[in-house]
Structures are given as C-alpha cells and as structure tokens.
C-alpha cells in the first residue's frame, strides 16, 4: 500500500516538473521570437545614441550609456555655467578636463597639443545650411598641467589637466576639442570619452565638451531638431513636420469617425436605391491600389476640384493640407468596418424607438452611436496609425516647400540631407525612432483596440 502511494506521488511530482519545464520551453521560444521582432527596433534605438552607428563590428556597448560619461558631461557643463543636464559655456567661465595617456617605454614624453577646432555641424546639406560664429575665436587655452605620473614596467601613465576659458563677453552653447598626441601613445581615459578617435589613435576628438548630460546622450536626436530648418521661413523643420503630422492625423481621424459611422449606418440599416451595388463598389475599391487613381486625383487637386476652390478664393490644392485632407475624408475600409459593426447590433431597440416616433437621425445619434463605442475606438486607432504612417499620397501631392511636409516625407528627405558620400546614420536613425514613438506609445496604451481593430476588420469581412 505504502509503495503504491509513493509511486503515485512520484508520478505527480514528475508531471508537475514536466509541466513547469513545458512552460519554460514555451517562454524560451516566445523570448526568441521577441528578439526577432523587437531586435531591429531596440538595436536601432540604441545605435541612434552612438556617435557612429555604423561602426564595425556592431556592438551593444554605447559610450552614451555609461554613467562615468554622464558624470563627466554633468561636471563639464556645470563648469561652463549650465545646469548640468543642459550645458553652456558662459562668458568668463573656465572648463577643465582630465585625460590619461600611456607612453610606452622608449617614447619621448610630449604633452598633447590642444586645439579648439572650427567645425561645421553635421554633414551633407545640413552642414552647408549653418553659418555661425566659431567658439574657437573667443576662448583661451591655458597651459597644460601634468597632475599625475605613474611608471610601471611597460610604460608611463600620465594624467594631464586641460583648461579652457571663455574670455569673451558672449555665451556659447558648445566647445569642441581636438587633442593631438604623438604616434604610439595610447589614450586610456578621460573625464568624458571622446566622440571619435582618428588617425590611428593620434587624435581624440570631442564634439562638445559642455553639452550637458541630456544633449550628450541624445546628441543625434538633438541634431535632428537643430540642423533642419526651412530656408524660406527659418522655422525648425522637424518640429514642424511633427506638428503637421499630428494636425492632419487628428483632423482625418475626426472626419473618418463621423462620416464612416454615418455611411456605415446607412449601408447597414437603411433602405435606399442601389444599396447593394454601392456595397460591391466599396469592396471593389478596397482592392484597387492607390497607384491606379492617383494621377486623376493629382489633376483634380491641381485644378482645385473642378475649379470649385476658386469660388472661395483658393487656387490649386497641391501642396496644401486642405488638399491632403479633403481627398481622404473617409476611407472605404472605415465605412466597411462600421457597416459590419452596425449589422451585428440587435434591431429591437431601433424598432421600438421607431414605433415611439423617433426619426432616423435621432435613432442614429441617440441610439446607434453610443452603442458603437467599441468599434469607434478600434477605428480611431486604426485610422490614426494609417494616416500617421501614410507615405504614397503625401509624397505625390506635397513636394514643396519643406515646411509643408509630413513626418514620413520629411524622413525621406533625410536621405539627401544626411548623405555626403556615405550616410550619416546617427540622425537618420534618431529621426526614424522619434517619428515612430507616438505610434508606439499609442499602441502600448491602447493595445486592446489595436488587436480588436485588426481582428474586427478582418474576421467579419
């Protein structure tokens, strides 16, 4: 009897253990897949912090994420007169900086040569569009001090202190620096890690010593905002594009919600001539690519919708938000979703309201719309995503000026802005990540609606 009992408990234990192992295996597989799906984003986001996102071999190590550098950036920015998180080089302030080199045996000990370079910000077109004063003309470099020297069997480790003073009456927001050392001397460490090491280790180069912590970490992201400005109005382009995208998206979401529920309700519940034909036509239109209709639509907008805009004193609708919005007030698929939803609702309430003498409009606004909340939620998210990510149609009708662009088209222009020979991937990746953020946040908050929306528009079709 006892043996029997032992045996069952043994089996139970085994089953339990196996169950846990099974769960573990499933988690392992799920984790692998998340790396596959999230990996490119996360690695892209991480690399957008780096000075050179295309360094070989690609690595997870990012100088911008090391606390030692945060501390360095903070102290340097404080010395320059900034608050630490954001930096400055104020008039009369002095920035001092420590750096350690290793001089191998037999190499003459020469202190590094300190240069404050005159450097254009950015590459490609971004560099050409900035003309400004150079901080180099307004600072004084104090004589370099040796503060520590340790000898060991392979060489001498020497720490230097470098001090730079702003002797002008002006405030600057940057202080670039180059240090030149003799060949074969090794750079070991510094208050702030250099942004680049060039010429086989002979030059250590910093973009901005006094950037402050936040611009130091997100320096590519700041570049995206600062280096793109309109040649006609002087406005910051990237911010304008974000604003444009939000504006167009919000307007189109509102028009879609209103007009799609109106049309969806009519198609689902009201009787009128040609209802079935219209529905078939809607299905047909959902299969036709935008490339089939865009030439005519382009011409219609160019001529101001058959000249109608002339009545209101307008002209061509190309390169206008009005044109972009009016051509996409409500999509056929949104109407389709709402129609499917309304058809699934019970008819009793509507019928009793009708017996009580309610009109179609009253039934629609007082009874049907409140019931449609879940579908409207899903439709909001789907439309937001669709409009925010829209690429083809804005590309066709918005060509200039650049401050009319939406984010997607603006990002495409980065390919020219940041290409001189090779791509400057830092700001391109940073721009891409920033423009994906709103949709990712929206997705995480309203996940349920996203998933519902997809299954809704799909399953019932």
């Amino acid at each position, binding site marked *: 009897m006892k043996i029997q009992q032992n045996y069952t408990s043994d089996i139970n234990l085994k089953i339990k253990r196996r169950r846990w192992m099974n769960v573990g295996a499933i988690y392992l597989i799920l984790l692998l897949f998340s790396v596959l799906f999230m990996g*490119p984003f996360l690695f892209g986001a991480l690399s957008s912090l780096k000075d050179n996102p295309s360094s070989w071999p690609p690595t997870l190590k990012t100088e911008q994420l090391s606390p030692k550098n945060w501390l360095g950036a903070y102290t340097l920015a404080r010395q320059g007169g900034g608050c630490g998180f954001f930096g400055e080089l104020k008039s009369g302030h002095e920035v001092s900086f420590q750096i350690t080199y290793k001089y191998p045996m037999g190499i003459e000990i020469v202190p590094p040569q300190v240069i404050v370079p005159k450097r254009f910000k950015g590459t490609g077109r971004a560099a050409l569009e900035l003309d400004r004063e150079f901080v180099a003309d307004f600072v004084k470099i104090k004589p370099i001090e040796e503060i520590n020297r340790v000898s060991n069997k392979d060489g001498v480790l020497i720490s230097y202190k470098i001090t730079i003073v702003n002797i002008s009456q002006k405030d600057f927001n940057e202080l670039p620096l180059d240090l030149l050392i003799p060949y074969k001397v090794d750079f070991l460490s510094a208050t702030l890690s250099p942004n680049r090491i060039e010429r086989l280790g002979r030059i250590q180069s910093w973009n901005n010593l006094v950037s402050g912590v936040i611009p130091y970490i997100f320096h590519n992201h700041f570049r995206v905002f600062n280096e793109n400005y309109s040649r006609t109005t002087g406005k910051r382009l990237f911010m304008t594009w974000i604003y444009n995208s939000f504006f167009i998206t919000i307007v189109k979401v509102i028009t879609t919600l209103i007009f799609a529920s109106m049309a969806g309700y009519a198609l689902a519940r009201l009787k009128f001539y040609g209802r079935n034909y219209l529905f078939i036509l*809607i299905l047909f239109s959902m299969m036709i690519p935008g*490339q089939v*209709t865009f*030439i005519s639509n382009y011409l*219609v907008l160019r001529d101001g919708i058959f000249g109608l805009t002339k009545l209101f004193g307008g002209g061509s609708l190309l390169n206008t938000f009005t044109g972009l919005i009016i051509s996409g007030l409500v999509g056929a698929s949104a109407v389709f979703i709402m129609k499917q939803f309304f058809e699934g609702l019970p008819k009793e309430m509507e019928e009793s309201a009708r017996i009580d003498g309610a009109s179609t409009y009253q039934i629609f606004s007082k009874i049907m719309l409140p019931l449609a909340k879940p579908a409207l939620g899903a439709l909001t998210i789907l439309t937001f995503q669709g409009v925010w990510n829209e690429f083809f149609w804005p590309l066709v009708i918005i060509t200039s000026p650049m401050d009319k662009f939406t984010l997607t088209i603006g990002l495409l222009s980065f390919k020219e802005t940041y290409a001189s020979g090779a*791509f400057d991937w830092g700001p391109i990746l940073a721009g891409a990540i920033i423009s994906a953020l709103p949709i990712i946040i929206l*997705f995480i908050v309203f996940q349920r609606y996203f*998933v519902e929306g*997809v299954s809704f528009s799909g399953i019932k079709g």
Partner: protein
Amino acid sequence: MGNRWSSLKEKTAPYVLLSPFLFGFVIFFSYAFIRSLYFSFTDYDLFSLPNWVGITNYINLFKEHLFTRALRNSLTFTIIVTTLQTIFALLLAVVMNQKIRGIKYFRTAYYMPSVTSSIVITLIFMWMFQRKGVINYLLTLLHQYGLTIGVFLALLAGIQFLLVFKEKLRGRPVEYLEPSYIILSIILASIITYVFKDFGIIKPIEAKAVDIFWLNTREKVPFWAGPFAFPRPLGAIMILNIWTTVPTFMILYLAGLQGIPKVLYEAAEVDGAKGWQKFWYITVPQLKDITFLVVTLGLIGTLQMFDQVKIIGTQAPLESTITLAYYVYQSAFPGASAPKVGMASAAAIILAVLTLTVVLIQKVFSGEGRGLRN
C-alpha cells in the same frame, strides 16, 4: 405640412448620411478610376490635350524592358512573400496561442513591426543591410561559429532522441519534440559543447567578414534557380516585408484559433492523434476561412508594394527593385523627362486587373478545396 416635411426628411436620410462619403468616393475613386481607364488609351502627358491612341500603350508596355522587369519583380515578390508570411503567421499564432502568464506582453512585442511606418522600418533595415551592417555581421558570426553551432545542434538532436527513446522503451507516450526534454537536451548539449570548446576540440573558424552587397547589386539569388532567380535587393525587401506583415496576420489567426471548438481536439486525442496530426487535420482545415482572408489581404498588399522601392531609391539599381506600383509612379512623375501619363495609366490598369484576377483565382481555388473536403 409637418408630416410631409418629416417624411421627406426620412426619405432623404440615407443620402444625407452617405453624402460626405459619396463626395470623396465619387470624385477620388469612381471618377479617378474611369479617368485612368480613359487615359490608358490616350497619349496624355499632363500638359497638352489627350489624343486617343487605342491600345498602343498596352502594346508598347510589353515591349518596354523596364515594365516587363517590374511585372516580373511584382509577381515574384507577391508569390514568395504571400506564401511565406501566411505560413509564418500561422505557425507563430499556434505558438502564441497559450494560456500562460505574460502572453499579452509578448503579443505587444510581436506586433510592434506592424504598427510602425514603412519609412521607419525601411530606414532601419537599410542601415542593417549595409555592407558593414548588422546583417552581414550576424552572418560573419554564423560563419565563424558554424562548426560550434553544428556540433551543438547535432548533440541536441542526439540527446533528445535518446531521452525520448528511453521513455518510449518504458512504454510511456512521449512525443519527439516534448518541450521538457528539449530544455534538458539544450542544457546538456550546451555543457558538452562548452567542454569541447574549452579543450580546443572545436574552434571558431578564422573567417573574413562576410561582405554581401544586399542593396547595391545586380546579382540574382538563389544562384541555382536559373530563370526563376530574383534580384538580391528584392530579396532584402522580401525579408523586411515578411517581418512587418507576419504580426498582423498572426493576430487574425490567433482570433481564429480561439474560435476552434476544443471538442475537436479532445476527440482526436481519444483517437490517438499526435501533435502534428492535430495541427494538420484539425487546425489547418478549421482556419480555412482565415487563411483565405490572410492570403487575399496579403496578395492585395504585396502587389501594390511601393514604399520600400521609393525609400531605397538610388541605393539599389532601379531594375532590381522596381515593381508595378513604382513603375506607374515613375512614368507619371519621371522627374527629368516628360510625364508618360498614358503609359502610366495603362500600367496601373494592368496592376488593377492583375490584383482582381489573382484574388478571383485564389477564391476559386479555396472554393474547390472546400468541395473536395466535403
């Protein structure tokens, strides 16, 4: 009087409710579609008045090298991407269809590629597909540690087989892919591989960095496929496209999976069906409607692939990435030369007809499938 007014209001209600939608639908779809059809029979160039030229445009299209290239690329792209994404989406959905803690967070993670815009994803992928990019680096690692990975996988398979075989000898019902044993095998195989490596029995190969041109190349892959080979840049776009669309279709399949009655599986288990048999004989047929939907949406989506081609732009030779949708755009707005709206419209109509035909064919096929099964 009041009655007549309200009855008029009732009669016009449907049209009033529909009017904002119809305004856009008539102007920007119906009229545009008919006008495209008309333009395709003319020599319109955006500036002078169109002249009727009959079917000349359609004939000229097939004489043009770039168009046939685009047609071929589009068809290859559609067939390969639709097939692979449907299979992957189904498999992923089956894996995801678990009632365990935290599954929601995984779903969120998986769905990420589907919510972000094509421009963001294409830019990130262009960065990864550089010559000195992440993809080539991973391939380099794979090359260097290929032997190690091979030994590990061989050990994994061997140990798993032995463990399961032992259980089978004892007469217990175990499947070859029993997850709990897989975990055990992974642990054992890792330890043995590590020991081998530590003793220097297997070493990483000293290989040069993999240097594949993913975008800027005219090479065709796979090399053994002869006339069926496609340009490698198109292959890169396929990878990125599958990666972005699989999650959406996975959601559709997941919803479908949750609708399959459990009784079916229980009955099959009583009849002694194994895991893959249950998958093949219950899951797949039960999801037939969803599969139809996924394939239809996939066909429509892949046939109009445009964004990636435009975004990659001059980073890849036009011939190796051009699709029908891009051909239409490029003929209508060629930049330097005169717009060929007639040709563009003809190509657009061909694209539309192709989409409708493909969807119809697939409908007929799935309909036939239903008949056979009954």
